[in-house]
């Protein structure tokens, strides 16, 4: 399930960061992905919400530190 979510995130990251060869792992974070600044972060969150049909609370986003955290949050939203 998590692997499926991570797989579905790949094209979203490539589009938001305008990098067709970008591949993120669960450990990827703002420090390791070039261009992941505050503006890209907002665009990424909006794109993820749209693609997965979920809405994140601001408090939930505060705790995201890496792509794996995002995968876990999406999974928890989908299971609710």
């Amino acid at each position, binding site marked *: 399930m998590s692997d499926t979510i991570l797989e579905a995130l790949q094209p979203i990251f490539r589009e938001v960061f305008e990098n067709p060869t970008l591949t993120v792992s669960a450990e990827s974070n*703002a420090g390791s992905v070039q261009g992941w600044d*505050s*503006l890209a*972060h*907002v665009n990424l*969150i*909006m794109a993820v919400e749209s693609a997965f049909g979920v809405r994140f609370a*601001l408090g939930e986003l*505060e705790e995201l530190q890496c792509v794996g955290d995002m995968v876990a949050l999406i999974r928890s939203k989908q299971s609710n």
Partner: protein
Amino acid sequence: MSNYTLRRATSQDAHLLIEAILAAERLPLADDRSMYEALLGFDRRECMAFLQFALGQNVAGHQLSYDSFRVLCCGGEPAACCATWIEGVNAAPSSFAVAMLMASFLGKERWAARAPALRIVSATVPKRTQGYLQLETFFVAPRHRGQGLVTRLINEIAFEHSVPESAAALTAEIVLFRENQSAIRAYRAAGFLRSVPTADASSEFIALTGSRGYLHIQRDLTLPFHDTPENAS
């Protein structure tokens, strides 16, 4: 000697905190606008609505949260305040949280429309250091000025962080506009003597804000702080 006590801010302090934020973010422009108004295209009324919205979310770890603000009271009356948090420990960078607050308030279309201005500012704002204690939005009520309350606030917060069990940060840092000379003098007097190199502002940033950029200054929290000179802020 007046009896001052430090406490966390609550929603009861909203008026003081919004006044503090608008003062701290005031741009060196003729029309008295704040950074949020220039950046997001707000008038003053909408800017205050945004700040109320942001504070009301009370998401920790950035400068627009009740949780981050400390209020220094004199005889129970708020005399001064500032925001403080530790940057990005077990959390996203504060700039991410603030950007999400802006986007949530603006909505997708207005956020996209402000993207050019947001990019200009984002390229100039210094990156805060992960794990460092952040201090921001110092404000002293007019009738309490000239009593060294900025230094007192810094020392009280530094003391909190010097207790070994809570020593989450060993360095404090402040980011502010280069033009804010009176505040710079106060922070230098309070021990913020180390400057982190910052980028010169682009012509677009200067046109948008009237500022030539930011100053990024730091202070070692392990240094003695009881003997720092009082200042006249």
